[in-house]
Protein backbone atom coordinates (compact mmCIF):
# COMPACT_ATOMS: atom_id res chain seq x y z
CA UNK A 1 0.00 0.00 0.00
CA UNK A 2 1.64 3.20 -1.16
CA UNK A 3 1.67 6.34 0.93
CA UNK A 4 1.20 8.23 -2.33
CA UNK A 5 -2.11 8.79 -4.09
CA UNK A 6 -2.60 7.36 -7.58
CA UNK A 7 -2.15 10.83 -9.06
CA UNK A 8 1.05 11.36 -7.10
CA UNK A 9 2.45 8.02 -8.22
CA UNK A 10 1.66 8.84 -11.82
CA UNK A 11 3.41 12.18 -11.45
CA UNK A 12 6.47 10.61 -9.81
CA UNK A 13 6.72 8.24 -12.77
CA UNK A 14 5.93 10.82 -15.45
CA UNK A 15 9.52 11.68 -16.24
CA UNK A 16 9.99 15.14 -14.77
CA UNK A 17 13.75 15.23 -15.13
CA UNK A 18 14.88 17.14 -12.06
CA UNK A 19 13.91 17.37 -8.43
CA UNK A 20 15.48 19.54 -5.76
CA UNK A 21 16.84 18.03 -2.59
CA UNK A 22 17.21 20.03 0.61
CA UNK A 23 19.52 18.88 3.39
CA UNK A 24 20.89 20.60 6.49
CA UNK A 25 24.56 21.38 7.09
CA UNK A 26 26.52 21.03 10.31
CA UNK A 27 25.81 24.63 11.33
CA UNK A 28 22.08 24.37 10.60
CA UNK A 29 22.23 26.08 7.21
CA UNK A 30 20.00 24.46 4.62
CA UNK A 31 21.44 23.23 1.35
CA UNK A 32 19.49 22.67 -1.85
CA UNK A 33 20.56 21.04 -5.06
CA UNK A 34 18.91 19.96 -8.31
CA UNK A 35 19.21 16.24 -8.84
CA UNK A 36 17.86 13.34 -10.81
CA UNK A 37 15.84 10.80 -8.85
CA UNK A 38 13.93 7.58 -9.15
CA UNK A 39 10.64 6.71 -7.53
CA UNK A 40 11.19 3.21 -6.15
CA UNK A 41 7.81 1.48 -6.43
CA UNK A 42 8.87 -1.56 -4.44
CA UNK A 43 10.00 0.38 -1.38
CA UNK A 44 7.71 3.38 -1.97
CA UNK A 45 10.73 5.66 -1.61
CA UNK A 46 12.62 8.28 -3.57
CA UNK A 47 16.10 7.04 -4.49
CA UNK A 48 18.90 9.46 -5.32
CA UNK A 49 22.41 8.76 -6.48
CA UNK A 50 25.12 10.42 -8.52
CA UNK A 51 28.69 10.60 -9.65
CA UNK A 52 31.25 10.49 -6.86
CA UNK A 53 28.24 10.52 -4.61
CA UNK A 54 30.06 9.99 -1.31
CA UNK A 55 31.94 13.26 -1.81
CA UNK A 56 28.79 15.34 -2.27
CA UNK A 57 27.57 17.74 0.34
CA UNK A 58 24.05 16.31 0.23
CA UNK A 59 25.43 12.90 1.10
CA UNK A 60 27.66 14.20 3.87
CA UNK A 61 24.81 16.26 5.29
CA UNK A 62 22.59 13.20 5.54
CA UNK A 63 25.26 11.32 7.47
CA UNK A 64 24.83 13.93 10.22
CA UNK A 65 21.13 14.79 9.86
CA UNK A 66 18.90 12.34 8.05
CA UNK A 67 15.99 14.75 7.74
CA UNK A 68 15.55 15.90 4.15
CA UNK A 69 13.00 17.49 1.86
CA UNK A 70 12.61 16.76 -1.83
CA UNK A 71 10.43 18.64 -4.31
CA UNK A 72 9.49 17.79 -7.88
CA UNK A 73 7.52 20.40 -9.76
CA UNK A 74 6.85 21.69 -13.23
CA UNK A 75 4.49 23.81 -15.22
CA UNK A 76 1.69 21.79 -16.77
CA UNK A 77 0.77 24.88 -18.75
CA UNK A 78 2.01 28.44 -18.95
CA UNK A 79 -1.17 29.87 -20.43
CA UNK A 80 -3.24 29.46 -18.39
CA UNK A 81 -0.63 29.35 -15.68
CA UNK A 82 -0.78 25.94 -14.06
CA UNK A 83 1.91 24.84 -11.65
CA UNK A 84 1.98 21.38 -10.13
CA UNK A 85 4.30 19.39 -7.96
CA UNK A 86 4.94 17.29 -4.92
CA UNK A 87 7.07 17.90 -1.86
CA UNK A 88 8.22 15.01 0.26
CA UNK A 89 9.69 15.54 3.70
CA UNK A 90 11.19 12.56 5.42
CA UNK A 91 14.15 10.54 6.51
CA UNK A 92 16.98 9.68 4.16
CA UNK A 93 18.81 6.44 4.61
CA UNK A 94 22.39 6.12 3.38
CA UNK A 95 22.96 2.95 1.39
CA UNK A 96 26.38 1.72 0.34
CA UNK A 97 25.14 -0.14 -2.71
CA UNK A 98 22.45 0.15 -5.35
CA UNK A 99 23.42 3.60 -6.60
CA UNK A 100 24.96 2.27 -9.79
CA UNK A 101 21.49 1.30 -11.01
CA UNK A 102 20.28 4.89 -10.86
CA UNK A 103 22.31 6.29 -13.72
CA UNK A 104 25.28 5.68 -16.00
CA UNK A 105 28.55 6.04 -14.16
CA UNK A 106 26.88 6.56 -10.80
CA UNK A 107 28.65 5.66 -7.57
CA UNK A 108 27.39 2.72 -5.47
CA UNK A 109 26.37 4.99 -2.59
CA UNK A 110 22.85 6.38 -2.65
CA UNK A 111 20.13 7.98 -0.57
CA UNK A 112 16.72 6.43 -0.01
CA UNK A 113 14.06 8.84 1.22
CA UNK A 114 11.12 7.47 3.19
CA UNK A 115 8.24 9.98 3.21
CA UNK A 116 6.88 11.31 6.49
CA UNK A 117 4.93 14.23 5.12
CA UNK A 118 3.65 14.72 1.58
CA UNK A 119 2.35 17.92 0.02
CA UNK A 120 1.12 17.91 -3.58
CA UNK A 121 -0.60 20.54 -5.65
CA UNK A 122 -2.08 20.92 -9.10
CA UNK A 123 -1.89 17.23 -9.98
CA UNK A 124 -5.62 16.74 -10.50
CA UNK A 125 -6.85 20.20 -11.32
CA UNK A 126 -5.49 23.67 -11.09
CA UNK A 127 -6.21 24.41 -7.47
CA UNK A 128 -6.05 20.93 -5.97
CA UNK A 129 -3.92 20.67 -2.84
CA UNK A 130 -3.16 17.66 -0.69
CA UNK A 131 -1.01 17.84 2.46
CA UNK A 132 -0.80 15.11 5.05
CA UNK A 133 1.55 13.26 7.34
CA UNK A 134 2.01 9.64 6.34
CA UNK A 135 4.13 8.27 9.17
Amino acid sequence: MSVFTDQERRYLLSGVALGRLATVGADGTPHVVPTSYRYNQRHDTIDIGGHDFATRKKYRDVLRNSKVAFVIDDLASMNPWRARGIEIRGEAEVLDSGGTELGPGFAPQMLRITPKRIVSWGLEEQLSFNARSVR
Partner: protein
Amino acid sequence: MSFTDEEVAYLHSQRLGRIATVASDGQPDVVPVGYEFDGTYRYVGGLDPAKTRKFRNVRAGNAKVAVVIDDLVSADPWTPRYLRIYGTAELVDRRAGSGRPGTCGSRPPSGGAGTWPGVRSPTTARSAPGEPRTKLWLNKAPSRFAPRRSYPHGGVR
Protein backbone atom coordinates in the same frame (compact mmCIF):
# COMPACT_ATOMS: atom_id res chain seq x y z
CA MET B 1 27.09 43.22 -4.14
CA SER B 2 28.21 39.78 -5.00
CA PHE B 3 26.46 38.83 -8.22
CA THR B 4 28.36 38.90 -11.46
CA ASP B 5 26.76 40.18 -14.65
CA GLU B 6 26.43 36.61 -15.82
CA GLU B 7 24.65 35.63 -12.62
CA VAL B 8 22.31 38.60 -12.82
CA ALA B 9 21.41 37.67 -16.38
CA TYR B 10 20.74 34.12 -15.28
CA LEU B 11 18.56 35.25 -12.39
CA HIS B 12 16.49 37.27 -14.85
CA SER B 13 16.20 34.39 -17.28
CA GLN B 14 14.58 31.85 -14.98
CA ARG B 15 11.02 31.93 -13.80
CA LEU B 16 11.20 29.82 -10.66
CA GLY B 17 13.64 29.12 -7.88
CA ARG B 18 13.47 26.58 -5.09
CA ILE B 19 13.94 27.76 -1.56
CA ALA B 20 15.00 25.62 1.39
CA THR B 21 14.37 26.55 5.00
CA VAL B 22 14.78 24.59 8.21
CA ALA B 23 12.34 24.04 11.07
CA SER B 24 13.44 24.20 14.69
CA ASP B 25 13.60 20.39 14.86
CA GLY B 26 16.07 20.26 11.97
CA GLN B 27 13.55 19.25 9.31
CA PRO B 28 14.21 21.07 6.02
CA ASP B 29 11.50 22.27 3.65
CA VAL B 30 11.92 22.95 -0.06
CA VAL B 31 9.39 24.53 -2.39
CA PRO B 32 9.29 26.25 -5.77
CA VAL B 33 8.84 30.00 -5.64
CA GLY B 34 8.52 32.85 -8.05
CA TYR B 35 10.74 35.72 -7.13
CA GLU B 36 11.67 39.29 -7.73
CA PHE B 37 15.27 40.36 -7.88
CA ASP B 38 16.19 44.00 -7.43
CA GLY B 39 19.90 43.65 -8.05
CA THR B 40 20.78 43.01 -4.42
CA TYR B 41 17.90 41.25 -2.73
CA ARG B 42 15.48 38.63 -3.85
CA TYR B 43 11.91 38.73 -2.72
CA VAL B 44 9.52 35.83 -2.46
CA GLY B 45 5.97 35.89 -1.29
CA GLY B 46 2.78 34.13 -2.14
CA LEU B 47 -0.95 34.27 -1.89
CA ASP B 48 -0.97 33.82 1.86
CA PRO B 49 2.69 33.54 2.84
CA ALA B 50 2.12 33.65 6.58
CA LYS B 51 0.60 30.16 6.39
CA THR B 52 3.49 28.57 4.58
CA ARG B 53 6.10 26.39 6.18
CA LYS B 54 8.97 28.51 4.84
CA PHE B 55 7.51 31.65 6.39
CA ARG B 56 6.89 29.95 9.71
CA ASN B 57 10.42 28.55 9.74
CA VAL B 58 11.89 32.01 9.25
CA ARG B 59 9.51 33.58 11.75
CA ALA B 60 10.56 30.96 14.32
CA GLY B 61 14.08 32.35 14.13
CA ASN B 62 15.57 30.00 11.57
CA ALA B 63 16.66 32.71 9.18
CA LYS B 64 19.23 30.73 7.23
CA VAL B 65 18.00 29.78 3.79
CA ALA B 66 19.30 28.33 0.56
CA VAL B 67 17.91 29.04 -2.87
CA VAL B 68 18.74 27.30 -6.10
CA ILE B 69 17.85 28.57 -9.55
CA ASP B 70 18.53 25.97 -12.17
CA ASP B 71 17.61 24.57 -15.52
CA LEU B 72 18.47 21.64 -17.71
CA VAL B 73 20.41 22.95 -20.68
CA SER B 74 20.30 19.54 -22.28
CA ALA B 75 18.99 16.15 -21.23
CA ASP B 76 21.34 14.37 -23.60
CA PRO B 77 24.10 14.92 -22.78
CA TRP B 78 22.84 15.56 -19.26
CA THR B 79 23.77 19.19 -18.67
CA PRO B 80 22.19 20.89 -15.71
CA ARG B 81 23.30 24.29 -14.55
CA TYR B 82 22.43 26.21 -11.47
CA LEU B 83 23.09 29.17 -9.30
CA ARG B 84 22.82 28.65 -5.59
CA ILE B 85 22.54 31.30 -2.94
CA TYR B 86 23.04 30.75 0.75
CA GLY B 87 21.71 33.62 2.75
CA THR B 88 19.66 35.07 5.51
CA ALA B 89 15.96 35.70 5.16
CA GLU B 90 14.26 38.66 6.70
CA LEU B 91 10.52 39.11 6.85
CA VAL B 92 9.59 42.42 5.30
CA ASP B 93 6.40 44.05 4.15
CA ARG B 94 6.73 44.66 0.46
CA ARG B 95 4.19 44.85 -2.28
CA ALA B 96 5.12 42.98 -5.39
CA GLY B 97 5.63 44.84 -8.61
CA SER B 98 6.78 47.96 -6.88
CA GLY B 99 8.23 49.14 -10.13
CA ARG B 100 11.92 48.78 -9.50
CA PRO B 101 13.81 48.05 -12.67
CA GLY B 102 15.32 44.66 -13.12
CA THR B 103 12.78 42.60 -11.30
CA CYS B 104 11.93 39.14 -12.43
CA GLY B 105 8.48 37.66 -12.39
CA SER B 106 7.30 34.14 -12.02
CA ARG B 107 5.37 34.03 -15.25
CA PRO B 108 5.61 35.73 -18.61
CA PRO B 109 3.58 38.78 -19.53
CA SER B 110 0.13 38.19 -20.90
CA GLY B 111 0.39 36.81 -24.39
CA GLY B 112 3.99 35.89 -23.90
CA ALA B 113 3.47 32.20 -23.38
CA GLY B 114 6.25 30.14 -24.78
CA THR B 115 8.90 32.76 -24.30
CA TRP B 116 10.46 34.09 -21.20
CA PRO B 117 12.05 37.47 -21.60
CA GLY B 118 13.55 39.08 -18.55
CA VAL B 119 10.45 40.73 -17.18
CA ARG B 120 11.25 44.37 -16.69
CA SER B 121 7.80 45.58 -15.87
CA PRO B 122 6.32 43.32 -13.27
CA THR B 123 3.32 45.55 -12.66
CA THR B 124 2.26 45.23 -16.25
CA ALA B 125 3.17 41.57 -16.33
CA ARG B 126 1.00 40.76 -13.38
CA SER B 127 -1.99 42.98 -13.92
CA ALA B 128 -3.55 41.10 -16.82
CA PRO B 129 -7.18 40.24 -16.04
CA GLY B 130 -8.23 36.64 -15.74
CA GLU B 131 -4.84 35.37 -14.69
CA PRO B 132 -5.21 33.41 -11.48
CA ARG B 133 -1.60 33.77 -10.46
CA THR B 134 -1.67 37.54 -10.27
CA LYS B 135 -2.61 37.53 -6.63
CA LEU B 136 0.40 35.51 -5.69
CA TRP B 137 2.50 38.59 -6.01
CA LEU B 138 0.45 40.78 -3.74
CA ASN B 139 2.91 40.01 -1.02
CA LYS B 140 1.99 40.70 2.53
CA ALA B 141 5.20 39.46 4.07
CA PRO B 142 7.79 38.17 1.66
CA SER B 143 11.29 37.22 2.58
CA ARG B 144 14.38 39.18 1.66
CA PHE B 145 17.67 37.56 0.90
CA ALA B 146 21.06 39.00 1.53
CA PRO B 147 23.35 36.86 -0.57
CA ARG B 148 26.35 35.51 1.25
CA ARG B 149 27.89 33.71 -1.63
CA SER B 150 26.80 32.39 -4.94
CA TYR B 151 28.28 30.56 -7.82
CA PRO B 152 27.19 29.25 -11.15
CA HIS B 153 27.95 25.69 -11.93
CA GLY B 154 27.61 23.62 -14.99
CA GLY B 155 28.64 20.13 -15.77
CA VAL B 156 28.06 17.05 -17.78
CA ARG B 157 26.92 13.97 -15.99
